């Protein structure tokens, strides 16, 4: 790569410029191509507005879960047991898995999505976007040593992107 300081051509991967000794270790990593990208890559999820997070145990009924979600006007809640996140129950789960009236009495532990993708509060915004795009879901719980500390939704991300480009 070309040394950004003195312009000498160096062998790719070299740590120091062979002419002027400038450290190339910072220069040959992939860089964000715009400040927008840079912000998404550098900002942690903790910078997003915290939404009140709902949490239930797995024995709570689906009916109760749905009622809570309606009450608080949120699209998801986290299922925890012994202080650890074991699942997530979202509006999509409700839509797809609730067939007849019997289902609403089941414990939410049976209808939830188990072992959900989780992130930490200091993971970057870009990672959350990536996971949602690949995984096809719109909610990601945030955890700290397995314990839920919040939830990031696609809506939060849209709002954040808007604040960055506006």
């Amino acid at each position: 790569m070309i040394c950004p300081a003195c312009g000498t051509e160096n062998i790719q991967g070299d740590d120091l410029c062979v002419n002027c000794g400038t450290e190339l270790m910072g220069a040959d990593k992939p860089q964000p191509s715009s400040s927008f990208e840079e912000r998404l890559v550098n900002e942690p999820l903790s910078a997003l507005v915290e939404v009140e997070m709902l949490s239930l145990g797995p024995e709570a009924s689906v009916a109760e879960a749905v009622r809570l979600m309606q009450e608080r006007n949120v699209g998801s809640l986290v299922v925890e047991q012994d202080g650890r996140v074991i699942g997530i129950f979202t509006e999509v789960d409700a839509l797809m898995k609730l067939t007849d009236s019997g289902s609403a009495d089941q414990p939410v532990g049976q209808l939830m999505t188990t072992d959900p993708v989780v992130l930490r509060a200091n993971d970057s915004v870009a990672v959350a976007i990536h996971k949602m795009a690949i995984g096809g879901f719109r909610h990601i719980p945030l955890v700290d040593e397995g314990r839920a500390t919040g939830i990031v939704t696609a809506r939060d991300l849209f709002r954040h992107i808007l604040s960055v480009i506006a």
Partner: protein
Amino acid sequence: MTTEAAPRREIEVRELDRVTIRFAGDSGDGMQLTGSQFTRTAAVFGNDISTLPDFPAEIRAPAGSLPGVSGFQISFASEDIHTPGDQPDVLVAMNPAALRTNIGDLPPGGALIVNTDAFSANNLRKAGYESNPLSDGSLKQHTVFEVPITTLNARSVEGLDMSAKQVDLTKNFFALGLMFWLYGRTMEPTLRWIADRFKAKPVIGEANARALKAGYAFGETTEMFHTKYHVAPARLSPGTYRNITGNEATALGFVTASRLAGRDLVYGSYPITPASDILHSLATYKNFGVRTFQAEDEIAAIGSAIGAAYGGALGLTASSGPGIALKSEALNLAVMVELPLVVVDVQRAGPSTGMPTKTEQADLLMAMFGRNSDSPVPIVAPATPAECFDYAIEAWRLALRYMTPVIYLSDAFLATGAEPWRVPSPEDLPDISVENHTDRATFQPYARDPETLARPWAVPGTAGLEHRIGGLEKAHLTGNVSYDPDNHHRMQLMRAEKVARIADDIPPLEVHGPAEGDLLVLGWGSSYGAIRSAVERLRDEGHSVAHAQLRYLNPFPSNTGDVLKAFKRVLVPEVNMGQLSMLLRSRYLVDVVGFNRVRGKPFRISEIRSAAEAVLAGRPIEDIANQPSEDESDSFSASGQGLA
């Protein structure tokens, strides 16, 4: 930038014998460049110097992260110094991550210069800081100088046509300029260097020069600093000097040996930390006839070296611990066929992959015994980076004279540390050449020279000397395959005797200090500097202590036993679990005391001192050896994964 004629503040100039500075920052902050420029200038001024660069633990790490911290420690003095310093007197930290990883090594009262511009919330978070150390009182035991380096630097290069990134690359020169002012260095050598290296990009060259001067001027005009320091030149013997690292010296030594022996060097090797740089260096010496070969694995590397030796060239291979382990069978073939070969082990912390970028000297017993059967191999171990040159030549002298493989033990600390080296002129170097055997009438493959017990070197391509060699045991004289029981015993004795006779051909063990006394501190390899300094200080305080450093580990110099017995106690500090001590005890029946710490770091002068004082006072030293160090950081690169 103009300054009004401000009232000159009182600046005290303090004379110091020695200063140790540590530069630490992100790889984008140019700390290696800063450190090496400072080193150059100190050397040109005439100080004795010793350096220890510390590269980031990861190949590439995110900016501002802990594994991305890059450091450079330089110690410069008006006296003869032997180590890059136990702890720095000054820490220059360019960002929070650098501060975090290094602050534990700065002693109370030490000076800290920080680039305040880098202490953003983001960077603090990346470094794992919950609160800003600059304001939360955690640095109160140090003298902190908060300098907005990035801002001041940007200002100094205003008006030049550069991108923001390019401007950022010049800030290390600002930091350097400031340090030059603080330590009374001239900017001339660096300004000349900038002008030369940045010829292709004059705008950047101009910016670097401005940044340097701005840093210097800042020191001069700011109210922050009340003391400057002066370190007088040291008294080095006359000659031409250059800075050299152990690996550079090793490579140069081998090229030189090739010339002195009148044979081409064929170097087979496989990339491994920390030996790869030897391959990189030697690969650029093709116009010296050096042929380098990157083999498919460690065994092919030594195989090609042995094949080259069979063909009459200097066959050389180098690796680190794990690679030497792989080479053991082939090395044993070289022992059996008695061909000259040099195997370099740049030791690192193990076992197995261990800590690839950390130093250790724990392959001694493997070098002595790590082969099947009784397989004696001479071993040399340089003690300083400059000695890496001399012992490269010496290794070849022995290999050629005695027709034997020789193991050359270096380590990661020697390999990357630097010191001034008085450059010899080639005429002053010894002739180490040996003749190939050409006379058919007198040729027998395993006839031995009466003095050295070496067998003749009959190289393919020499008419009339066709013969076969190989790994099977050979009959004395004829070299035919032999299963004769007495022949085998006799050949084993001869091979052992051949190596033992080297003791009469090497210098005696030298003792610094009294010829006899209360305590001898005996080391080998890179512990030289710390032991030497510790013992000198103890002697200054009146203790009856001497220092000796073994460069030949097999055979030991012939006076070694006598030296050991001339002292009441013998202390053997080693960065291993007691390998030289084991050899000394078994050979000389002397109850040496081992001081063994394996922290992946070179010894500190203070550690050796404490151990020596304990032995002199009759206290047990296990406590000192096993006690964790006070520093919080584990080293001045981030704890965490390293390179393989």
